[in-house]
C-alpha cells in the first residue's frame, strides 16, 4: 500500500513540477498595429501561408524548466492581414502561390510570403510564462511574373514581468507579435521597391 502511495506521489509531483508545455497565444493587440503617416500603396497584393504552416504548433522555452506551445502562423495571420491592408489598396489570401495566371486575372501585382520564427525564455525559476519573447517575420515579395522584388525582415520583442503576466500568461508573446507587425507595417510603407 505504502509503495502504491509513493508511486502515486512521484507521478503527481512529476505532473506538477516537471516539463509541461503550456498553451499560450500570440494574438496581437489590435490597437498596436496602426498605420501612422503612411501613404497607401495603390496596389492589389496577395499573401500565401500554407495550410501546413497554419497548423504548425511550436514549443519553446518558458520558465522553471517548463515549455510553452503556440501556433505562430495561425495567431499572426489576422494581424499580418491588417498590416498589409493598412499599407496596400487591397489584400487577399491565396491557396496556390504558383498559379501566376490566377494572380494576374485577379489584378494582383505582388505576392508576399511570410516566414515566422520565434524564441522565448524566462528569467524565473518558479513560474512558467515566458518573460522574454521574440518574433521574426521574414517576407519574400514577388511580382506577377514570380520574380523576387524585395526581401524584408523585421523582429519584434516583448517582455513581461511576473506582476504583469499573472493575469495574462501570453503577455510577452502578445507584445512581441504586436511589435513585429507594427514594424512590418512601417517597413512595408517605407520600401520604395514596393511602390514601383
Amino acid at each position, binding site marked *: *500500500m*505504502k509503495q502504491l*502511495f*509513493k508511486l*502515486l*506521489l512521484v507521478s*503527481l*509531483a512529476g*505532473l*506538477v513540477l516537471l516539463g*509541461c*508545455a*503550456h*498553451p*499560450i*497565444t500570440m*494574438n*496581437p*493587440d*489590435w490597437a498596436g498595429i496602426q498605420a501612422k503617416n503612411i501613404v497607401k500603396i495603390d496596389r492589389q497584393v496577395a499573401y500565401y501561408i500554407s495550410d501546413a504552416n497554419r497548423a504548425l504548433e511550436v514549443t519553446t522555452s518558458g520558465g522553471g524548466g517548463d515549455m510553452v506551445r503556440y501556433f505562430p502562423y495561425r*495567431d499572426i*495571420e*489576422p*494581424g499580418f*492581414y*491588417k498590416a498589409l*491592408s493598412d499599407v496596400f489598396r487591397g489584400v*487577399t*489570401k491565396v491557396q496556390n502561390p504558383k498559379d501566376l495566371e490566377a494572380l494576374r486575372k485577379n489584378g494582383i501585382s505582388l505576392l508576399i510570403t511570410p516566414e515566422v520564427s520565434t524564441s522565448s525564455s524566462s528569467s524565473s525559476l518558479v513560474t*512558467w510564462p515566458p518573460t522574454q519573447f521574440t518574433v521574426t517575420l521574414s517576407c519574400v515579395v514577388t511580382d506577377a511574373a514570380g520574380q523576387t522584388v524585395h526581401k524584408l525582415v523585421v523582429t519584434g520583442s516583448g517582455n513581461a514581468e511576473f506582476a504583469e503576466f*499573472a*493575469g*495574462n*500568461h*501570453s503577455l510577452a508573446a*502578445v507584445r512581441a507579435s504586436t511589435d513585429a507587425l507594427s514594424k512590418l507595417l512601417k517597413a512595408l510603407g517605407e520600401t520604395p521597391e514596393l511602390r514601383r
Partner: protein
Amino acid sequence: MSHLARAACLASVLVAAVFTVGCAGVAPNYAPSIDNVQSLKQSGAQPAKVGAVVVQADIPGGKSIGLRASSISSPVGENYGDYIATALRQELELAKLLDPQSGVEISGTLLRNNIDAGGFSTNSGQIEARFLVKRAGQLRFDKVKRIEHSWESSFAGAVAIPRAANNYPVMVQKLIGTLVADPDFIQSLQK
C-alpha cells in the same frame, strides 16, 4: 499522523494542484477570421457601424467565465458583450466595411457564454447571441445565433485551463462565421 495519512494528504494536495491551478486572468485578444473577412468582402454588403452588444441580465459567464478554479474576464470593455462587439468591429474593419458614421447598425445581446473546462479528455464551449441590424432605425435583421465548439483537454489544469481560454477567440470566430454565412444578415447590410 501516520506515514500513510501524510502521504494521502500530500497526494490530495498534489491532485488539487494538478487539477485546479487557480487564478483570475483575461481571455486572449480576439483574432479575426480571415475566412469571415473574405466572405464579408465578397458579399456586396455596405459599410456598417457596430453598436452595443449587451449582456442579458444575470447570465453566468457574461462578465467572467469559470475555468475549473480559475476564471477569465474580457480583455476589452466591461464584459463579453464588449468582446463580441470588438470582434465584429475588427472583422468589418479588415473587410473595409466599418464606418462609424453609417446609418446601418449591428447590435446584439449575449444570451449564453460558457466554457466547460472540467473534462480530462475533451472540453467544450457554447455562445448564443441575438443579433439585430437596423437601417435608419428600422429593424432589418433579428436572429439568434449559437455555436458549440470542442477541443482536446488534459487532466493537468496547467494545460487544460490555458487551452480552454485560448479557444474562446475561436468560439467567437465561429459565432461571427454563422452570422456572416446567413444570407438574411448579408441582405440586411446591402442597399
